[in-house]
């Protein structure tokens, strides 16, 4: 990065390591002011929306699950809810509870992976988890062990660890045996101490002292639970409270030239935030007592506007997911049939759930034979993209006189606050850093 002048510079990174997918960012500085920020992502949902057209409604959960290697469950959960609305199916409470349990597994896997392996190195000054592991092997081992317990939920409920196959429109292919879930529950009880230790670890990091007044949006569950699976309503800290069916009346996807993903904004053009911070700020009271106690112990208040603290919010949410999974298994009884009857019909349905990294919205329109006429998939990272760009502009404004690599470090750390799942077209990547 050679400065054009001492006051003008462009920081451009064509590939971000340690985000789940491919991304790039560019920050232009003129006269010691940030004049432009650009966060570019390469995202496949557009391909999948086209790919789904003409396919049977029953294929959507399995196909969309493959959009993201990290959060297949989120894609399945939003897609089945949208499909069930389109088909006029109301699923039973045991079906919903088992879906929430599966989601707990994914939250644990994804949050722990991101916090420990991708984000923590930023705070500790390491370029990668590998470098961090040399000095902090215990943290990495703890994270891998903890993540594995999340895997065990997904494996037991979803049928396999990666890309679960047991989820279907209308319910499940088969309700898992109670004895198998009881084994998982034993692991989960063992994970409670790991979860507490992990909260303490994340809270011990040094956080940049930066915050903004975000428009925070998350789903609201109909049953008073912490937002995760069942997004019947969407709420915000600025008074938004709408049924999920009004998503497209309230939010809009804009195409921007730097990205093949559409950027999400409110209809009036404002940026908004989805993810751990909105859930935390809008639903803190719905956390378990133990999760709240852990938050209090490490000084995390009920209001968190500093996005760098999202790493600790993720750790507390993971602790909550462990407890929630224990509770759901405690109440679990095998059920048969495992699915509601499904009769194809024409219709339109919407579904939203909370992927670990934020709200994921799906909408499908079906033909009378149940084939998909139109699919819309709005992932959390597309919605967060305008916020990421605003963060980049604001959070580096006071360090523009610092060396470029220091600015770049903070930019990357800032982007990773979002755990951006820009699940890539391929795992082929090419990192270049251009200076000019």
């Amino acid at each position: 990065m050679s400065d054009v002048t001492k006051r003008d510079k462009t920081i451009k990174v064509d590939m971000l390591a340690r985000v789940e997918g491919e991304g790039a960012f560019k920050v232009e500085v003129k006269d010691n002011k940030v004049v432009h920020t650009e966060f570019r992502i390469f995202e496949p949902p557009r391909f999948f929306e086209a790919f789904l057209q003409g396919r049977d409604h029953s294929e959507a959960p399995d196909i969309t699950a493959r959009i993201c290697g990290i959060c297949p469950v989120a894609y399945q959960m939003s897609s089945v809810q949208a499909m069930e609305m389109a088909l006029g199916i109301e699923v039973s409470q045991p079906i919903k509870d088992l879906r929430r349990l599966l989601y707990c597994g994914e939250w644990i896997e994804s949050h722990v992976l991101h916090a420990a392996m991708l984000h923590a190195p930023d705070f500790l000054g390491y370029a990668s988890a590998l470098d961090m592991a040399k000095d902090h092997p215990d943290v990495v081992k703890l994270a891998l062990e903890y993540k594995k317990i999340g895997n065990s939920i997904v494996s037991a409920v979803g049928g396999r660890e990666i890309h679960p196959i047991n989820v279907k429109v209308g319910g499940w292919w088969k309700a898992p045996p109670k004895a198998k879930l009881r084994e998982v529950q034993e692991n989960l009880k063992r994970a409670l101490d790991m979860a507490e230790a992990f909260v303490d670890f994340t809270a011990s990091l040094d956080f940049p002292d930066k915050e903004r007044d975000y428009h925070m949006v998350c789903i609201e569950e109909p049953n008073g639970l912490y937002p995760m699976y069942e997004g019947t309503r969407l709420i915000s800290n600025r008074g938004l409270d709408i049924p999920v069916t009004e998503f497209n009346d309230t939010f809009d996807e804009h195409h921007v030239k730097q990205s093949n993903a559409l950027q999400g904004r409110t209809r009036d053009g404002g940026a908004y935030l989805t993810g751990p911070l909105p859930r935390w700020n809008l639903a803190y009271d719905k956390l378990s007592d133990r999760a709240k106690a852990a938050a209090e112990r490490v000084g995390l208040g009920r209001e968190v506007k500093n996005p760098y603290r999202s790493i600790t919010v993720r750790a507390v949410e993971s602790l909550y997911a462990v407890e929630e999974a224990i509770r759901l298994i405690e109440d679990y009884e095998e059920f048969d049939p495992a699915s509601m009857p499904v009769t194809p019909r024409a219709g339109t349905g919407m579904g939203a759930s909370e992927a670990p990294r934020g709200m994921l919205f799906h909408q499908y329109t079906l033909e009378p034979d149940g084939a998909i006429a139109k699919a819309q998939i709005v992932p959390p990272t597309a919605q967060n993209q305008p916020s990421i760009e605003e963060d980049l502009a604001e959070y580096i404004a006071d360090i523009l006189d610092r060396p470029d690599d220091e600015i770049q470090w903070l930019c990357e750390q800032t982007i990773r606050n979002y755990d951006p799942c820009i699940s890539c077209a391929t795992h082929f990547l090419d990192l270049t850093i251009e200076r000019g």
Partner: protein
Amino acid sequence: MKPLVIGVGNDFAGDDAAGRLVARALAGAAGFDVAETHGAAADIVTLMEGRDRVLIVDACASGAAAGRLHRLDAGADDLPSWLRSVSSHGIGVAEAVALARVLGILPPRVEIWAIEGVAFCTGDAVSPQVQATIREVAGAIPAYLA
């Protein structure tokens, strides 16, 4: 514990699916276990842990001819930079091997078979040369691990 074959890749990104397609072709084979993953290091490390022998099959882009099979021994070789660069998200196969080594849980025998690909965009078809190598590799693995 039985040997483990790990197929790494992305089903919807052309030749990047190679590892997974090999894994799928081996489903039900006797004498070894088979797993698939999109390639995050944490998943690969977890899958490898406790095994004596692991064979990872992945796609790669080193600049060689399409369909060429690169056979690497993680214990003996310094893994080449192109393997690192094609691995998932900058934290893929090569990093998984390095991470497992740092943590002291790298299995005694880990090999990586990387199939040279040319088409990696979302929606691409698997190229014919890669398809041919997938068949060869899937055919050869049972005897190799026997």
